[in-house]
């Protein structure tokens, strides 16, 4: 009899666990603060390992109590034969099952973290939907939304007392056997040492209920009317009651139903725990974000009684966003941040993740992101809900991330696409010759290319996500990094709005080379060893030799890239664009205004522009900012005041008065169809005679995977020259504009070298590309530089002469370069002399050479310019009434005749 009394059963173990829960709960009440549960628990975890182990003990003993109670219940059911409890006791026992879950869930709510807050909302909504008493019930259990008082009272008293009474009543025992108590204590203690009770970092967007309700969360996800799910609880309680009170078939069917439910619920629980992530979307282990959105829930530190910091330092560490972060106890001297990104304001985990509640280095740094801001992890760092989610969502849509134009044009040139304007993405490259060409030679610069090494952004940098533009190392930070031998670095680089030209330089000194053009450097074909020892030459990336050319006038005035280009251009505006000129918003005429400016008052600015403006320039109230014509975006470093337009450089605050365009630019006669850059481009880098072929033995590079490989496309360049650009037509929306163009793709591609297919030959293209050379001069190009210049008209370099013979005038052109064997045109030409071309003529669908009429009209003026100086009165008058003047010309004036 005595032996039977002390026999260990699941019931006695559950009883032991119950007492452990009560004991640990009483002790845990000392450091726990219902006024700020989340802060008090995070403080416990960071500062008080003894309290922490008691919290873990309370958590684990309660989980085991639940499990053992359920197993105890099953154990009873498992026995054949009836249980046949009295109805009253059976009712109270069934009801106590509900109370156990309520005690558990109120404990879960008392964490006060993101999971708990949402669970509380669900519990409240479900309770409120119970007919008649719902509102009262919900309030009686949960109380005021911003108070934990009632939840705490029910957790420690109401539910606990009820469970105690139910246990004692049905088991007739107050105390578990001593062995069970000792075993339970030490077993739970051991687990509590190694695994802490969970606490959400309030950063991860995935929220889940406690493990025993995750299956229920899955069920709720499928229900439009979730209140019906409450019947499920009622059904289970009735089934438990029936098993305990009935016999034969009813009992058997009730047992069977409960068993089926248990199996089904287990499957749903596993589904919810392991296959649901952010927003309860499916998450599979092979998905990139699985680790972050699912496994995150299972990461929990062990107890460390000798933390890597002293208690005093830990106490002094600031509270960040309602929590204590252990990171700041060790990194307490880290400095160098801007105010908005100071560790005291946003903590460390907002950017670097890791475990903020662990107290030793190894556990704290687990799953840390050393270099945040890369686009693959930006949603977890810069883009979390409390920081910049809308920007991080936009950035991948921008051209600097997609490289859509670059990819589309390349495929077009390889004859893989009918047009150069299809929307594409660098993450969708296939195995075609063009895509391999892109991988080998072109696509390293997309923003998604991850930054993998510490250090400042420099001319070697490519990509880097948010850091590509916003990372700045102070000299102190750079020195600290350079001299580091593995110990903790206290000087942190800055994340700031100070985006300098150097940030853009690495990528934009290539291809169109606008960064180098802007600063007045033109790339040569010289090797590093051949570079003359002169300040007129500059070596970039240790191998590229540049020679001095006139810099852009805006550069001379101290303006940087971001002074013109605003946040919606650089970080995308959410729209996928085909080409840079579509995404690019700012035009010369937005700032250099004749007449009434377009403005927007400070109080009407969009939020992003208002924040940036305020951060850069302080109080902006009352200011009227200019607005772009194209995308209607505010230019926050301009303002209209006292009938003048003022401009401020963003990084240095240098103030300048904005000039209106010269009269010659703004009249509506000749030249009204010209883009400003057609005249004001001082020079542009050109390249002709390129050839591409694939070499299977060449040491190459995969720019997507960032590794070397054998076999690569190789580009053989012809020559680089700094020249005045050619003029072309951009035709869209019924409007034709004359724009500068360059020989973008006059090249041959040996397709067969890649495909090894004899049917593939050599592709030849003569495509010009629209250009934005960023070599603006305040003075426009001369009249003759267009009207008497074969290069400007598209014929290429050569001798263009106006001849008058026998009273008849005619233009003659002799090309500098020999005719290309592929199409008979000179190597640098876009069109033949006084001819035009159609079809595949440029790297855009809307850009064409000058037509014959345009060439003839241009050359007619050119004929005049052979005798009359461009500054002469007659030529100046020509600008307004050319056709009238032609009619009044003297007999000496011989106009060209066209055949």
């Amino acid at each position, binding site marked *: 009899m005595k032996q039977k009394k002390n026999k260990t059963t699941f019931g006695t173990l559950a009883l032991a666990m119950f007492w452990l829960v009560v004991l640990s709960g009483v002790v845990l009440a000392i450091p726990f603060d219902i006024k700020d549960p989340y802060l008090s628990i995070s403080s416990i975890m960071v500062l008080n390992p003894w309290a922490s182990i008691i919290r873990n003990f309370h958590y684990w003993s309660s989980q085991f109590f639940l499990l053992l109670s359920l197993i105890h219940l099953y154990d009873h059911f498992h026995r054949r034969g009836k249980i046949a409890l009295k109805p009253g006791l059976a009712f109270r026992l069934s009801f106590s099952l509900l109370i156990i879950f309520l005690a558990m869930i109120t404990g879960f709510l008392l964490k006060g973290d993101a999971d708990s807050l949402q669970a509380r909302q669900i519990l409240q909504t479900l309770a409120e939907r119970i007919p008649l008493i719902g509102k*009262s019930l919900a309030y009686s259990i949960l109380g*005021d939304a911003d108070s934990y008082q009632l939840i705490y009272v029910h957790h420690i008293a109401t539910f606990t007392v009820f469970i105690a009474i139910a246990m004692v009543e049905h088991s007739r025992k107050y105390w578990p056997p001593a062995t069970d108590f000792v075993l339970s204590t030490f077993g739970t203690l051991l687990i509590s040492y190694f695994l802490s009770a969970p606490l959400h970092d309030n950063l991860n967007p995935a929220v889940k209920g406690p493990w025993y309700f995750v299956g229920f969360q899955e069920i709720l996800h499928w229900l439009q009317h979730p209140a019906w799910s409450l019947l499920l609880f009622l059904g289970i309680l009735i089934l438990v009651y029936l098993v305990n009170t009935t016999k034969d078939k009813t009992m058997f069917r009730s047992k069977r139903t409960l068993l089926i439910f248990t199996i089904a619920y287990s499957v749903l629980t596993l589904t919810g725990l392991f296959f649901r992530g952010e927003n309860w*979307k499916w998450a599979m282990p092979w998905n990139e974000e699985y680790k972050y959105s699912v496994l995150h829930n299972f990461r929990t530190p062990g107890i460390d009684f000798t933390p890597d910091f002293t208690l005093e330092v830990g106490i002094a560490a600031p509270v960040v966003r309602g929590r204590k972060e252990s990171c700041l106890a060790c990194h307490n001297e880290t400095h160098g941040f801007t105010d908005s990104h100071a560790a005291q304001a946003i903590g460390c985990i907002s950017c670097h993740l890791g475990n903020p509640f662990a107290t030793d280095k190894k556990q704290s740094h687990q799953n840390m992101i050393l270099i945040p801001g890369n686009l693959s992890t930006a949603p977890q760092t810069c883009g979390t809900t409390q920081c910049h989610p809308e920007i991080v969502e936009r950035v991948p849509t921008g051209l600097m991330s997609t490289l859509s134009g670059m990819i589309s044009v390349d495929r077009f040139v390889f004859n893989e696409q009918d047009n150069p304007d299809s929307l594409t993405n660098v993450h969708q490259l296939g195995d075609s010759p063009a895509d391999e060409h892109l991988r080998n030679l072109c696509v390293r610069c997309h923003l998604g290319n991850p930054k993998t090494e510490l250090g400042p952004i420099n001319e070697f940098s490519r990509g880097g996500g948010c850091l590509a533009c916003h990372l700045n190392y102070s000299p102190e930070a750079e020195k600290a990094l350079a001299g580091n031998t593995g110990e903790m670095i206290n000087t942190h680089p800055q994340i700031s709005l100070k985006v300098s030209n150097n940030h853009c330089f690495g990528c934009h000194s290539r291809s169109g080379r606008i960064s180098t053009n802007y600063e007045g450097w033109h790339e040569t074909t010289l090797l590093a060893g051949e570079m003359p020892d002169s300040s007129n030459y500059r070596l970039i990336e240790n191998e590229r030799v540049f020679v001095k050319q006139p810099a852009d006038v805006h550069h001379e005035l101290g303006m940087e890239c971001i002074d013109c280009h605003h946040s919606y251009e650089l970080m995308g505006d959410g729209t996928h664009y085909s080409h840079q000129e579509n995404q690019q918003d700012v035009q010369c005429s937005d700032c250099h205004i004749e007449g009434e400016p377009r403005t927007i008052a400070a109080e009407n600015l*969009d939020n992003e522009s208002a924040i940036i403006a305020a951060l850069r320039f302080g109080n902006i109230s009352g200011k009227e900012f200019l607005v772009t014509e194209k995308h209607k975006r505010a230019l926050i470093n301009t303002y209209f005041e006292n009938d003048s337009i003022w401009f401020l450089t963003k990084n240095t605050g240098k103030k300048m008065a904005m000039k209106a365009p010269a009269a010659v630019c703004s009249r509506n006669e000749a030249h009204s169809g010209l883009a400003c850059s057609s005249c004001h481009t001082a020079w542009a880098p050109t390249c002709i005679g390129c050839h591409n072929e694939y070499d299977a033995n060449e040491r190459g590079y995969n720019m997507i995977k960032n590794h070397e490989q054998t076999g690569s496309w190789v580009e053989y360049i012809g020559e680089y020259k700094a020249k005045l650009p050619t003029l072309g037509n951009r035709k869209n929306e019924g409007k034709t504009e004359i724009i500068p163009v360059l020989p973008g793709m006059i090249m041959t591609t040996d397709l067969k070298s890649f495909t090894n297919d004899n049917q593939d030959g050599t592709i030849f293209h003569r495509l010009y590309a629209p250009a934005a050379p960023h070599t603006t001069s305040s003075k426009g190009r001369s009249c003759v530089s267009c009207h008497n210049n074969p290069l400007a008209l598209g014929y290429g370099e050569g001798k263009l002469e106006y001849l008058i013979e026998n009273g008849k005038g005619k233009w003659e052109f002799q090309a500098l370069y020999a005719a290309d064997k592929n199409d008979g045109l000179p190597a640098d030409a876009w069109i033949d002399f006084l001819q035009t071309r159609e079809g595949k003529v440029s790297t855009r669908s809307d850009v064409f050479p000058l037509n014959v009429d345009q060439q003839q009209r241009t050359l007619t003026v050119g004929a005049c310019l052979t005798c009359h100086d461009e500054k002469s009165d007659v030529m100046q008058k020509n600008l307004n009434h050319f056709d009238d003047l032609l009619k009044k010309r003297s007999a000496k004036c011989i106009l060209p005749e066209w055949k």
Partner: protein
Amino acid sequence: MKGRRTFLKIAITGAVAFFVFVWNKLTLQHLRTSSGKQHTFPFNKNKTVAFNGGFIVVTKPEIRVFSAHCTHLGCKIDKMQGDRLVCPCHGSEYDLEGKVLKGPAYRDLTEMKASISEDATTLTIEG
């Protein structure tokens, strides 16, 4: 004996019912006395969507204030994905007019009564 038992059962049921009645009345009365709160927040008309505690303030195309609680189970919506308000608990989605775009929720977000101060710097939400 049987009569006494029946009497006791009825008396206990009556006592419990009385207690439930008083509890229900008490709680509802308390809820009434503590309801009708006003919530005042700084207002930024340039922010298209602002999450202010339990409310979502949308300024375009017009200023409207919605309860941030998802109509499915009351979870607090605190983020947007693209141009959609997304519930973190079960993924219900709403447009900026509070209309349900994707379930499990099927009812639109509850619109709140709100007023903006004369200088357009604060927003007062009823209830």
